[in-house]
């Protein structure tokens, strides 16, 4: 009854064909079956945001999605965004502003921040806070993270930071 399910999806631009148990969530599938461990697993019930990935262009919680539900989808993880250079400036801003300490929340923060910057060229600090409200950071705090996102937004539209 709990037989594995064949799935075919695209992960960071590469076609992946696998068999998964129904109970396997997308975060564990990425980490354990594909060894893409940049996606972190925190609370496992959708509160902390550490497992944020992109599915068909939208950010989602990969702990709240079955791997089986990703059949036919295009998934992008932090490895994909990092390797393509899409978030290189955001990563540099996080580093420069000390917006990470232990780094556990950082992949999810980068995912959520990039999602905001794709939708809105120059968000104000309140909008940045609201968009990141679903992502917990338990060491650096949010000030530096908001600073880094704000700086990146300004640089991308050609302003001085």
């Amino acid at each position, binding site marked *: 009854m709990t037989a594995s399910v064949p799935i075919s999806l695209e992960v960071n631009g590469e076609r992946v064909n696998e068999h998964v148990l129904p109970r396997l*969530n997308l975060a564990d599938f990425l980490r354990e079956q594909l060894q893409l461990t940049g996606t972190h697993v925190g609370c496992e019930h959708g509160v902390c945001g550490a497992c944020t990935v992109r599915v068909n262009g939208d950010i989602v919680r990969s702990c*709240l999605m079955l791997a089986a539900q990703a059949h036919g989808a295009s998934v992008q993880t932090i490895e994909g965004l990092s390797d393509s250079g899409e978030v290189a400036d955001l990563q540099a801003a996080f580093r420069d502003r000390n917006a990470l300490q232990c780094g556990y929340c950082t992949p999810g923060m980068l995912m959520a921040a990039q999602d905001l910057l794709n939708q809105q060229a120059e968000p104000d600090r309140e909008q940045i806070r609201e968009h990141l409200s679903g992502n917990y950071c338990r060491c650096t705090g949010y000030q530096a993270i908001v600073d880094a996102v704000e700086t990146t937004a300004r640089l991308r539209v050609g302003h001085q930071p």
Partner: protein
Amino acid sequence: MKASAFSYARATSVANALELLTAHGDRAKVLSGGQSLMPAMNLRLISPELIVDIGELAELRGIAVSGCILTIGALTRHVDLQRSPDVAAHAPLLTEAIAHVAHPAIRNRGTIGGSLAHADPASELPACMVALSATILVRGPKGERRIAAGDFFKGIYETALSPDELLMAIELPVGGPNSAHFFHEFARRHGDYAIAGLAAQATVDGDAFTELRLAFFAVGDRPVLASAANRLVDVRVTPAILSEASAALAEELNPQEDHQASASMRRHLAKVLMQRCVSTLLGRSDLNTGGVA
């Protein structure tokens, strides 16, 4: 934690989903966006034997206006509601409320049908349905039923849906020319579950309400349509009348106590919400007598 083992079926049509639900009854659970079901399964609060994934049933998705009815398919995601010009034009209460539903990554997956079928008493959308006099369309092996939102919510996580029925769509009456709305909730952090909230839909004629539907949430085991609102209809509202209505509201509410708030704190917040709502909708700052939240 991880969900316990279950079998998985990807429904290929509504008929197929209904067959699966009929065969497995309450041992099966319908999966749409999964933003409430998956946490409950990961925490082992529920352990269904079969998951019926309806995510690919495109016929359950979409927003349409026909005459004076706005129809929203059950699989329509929160983000689609938030961005819909039809919803903004005809049910702006919903557009405003959606911004308070969780966070962007959750709104990208969560669906209106899932939220209503889950029936968390602290969630926003059930209260909006009650305020907006929605009709909820469900289909089962014996055919389709149309259930008024006021009769749909039965208690904490309880609805009028039977295990072999599927929530198909929601119908909302389009707002009239004098319709007005108000939405506000108190929460520890934006996007968290409300401690107390209010979704209100009104018709205003001059300086009086001709209709006022106040649906409170997180202050009972289901959305509560306040009878106290009737005291504010077809009268020129004075501070004294509002104060009487507010006392009547506190009488009729029976809020739960939990780690976030006591019952008396919830009653107090509900009264503050009512006062803010009435003074805002009537444009009367004299009615906002300064209840502190």
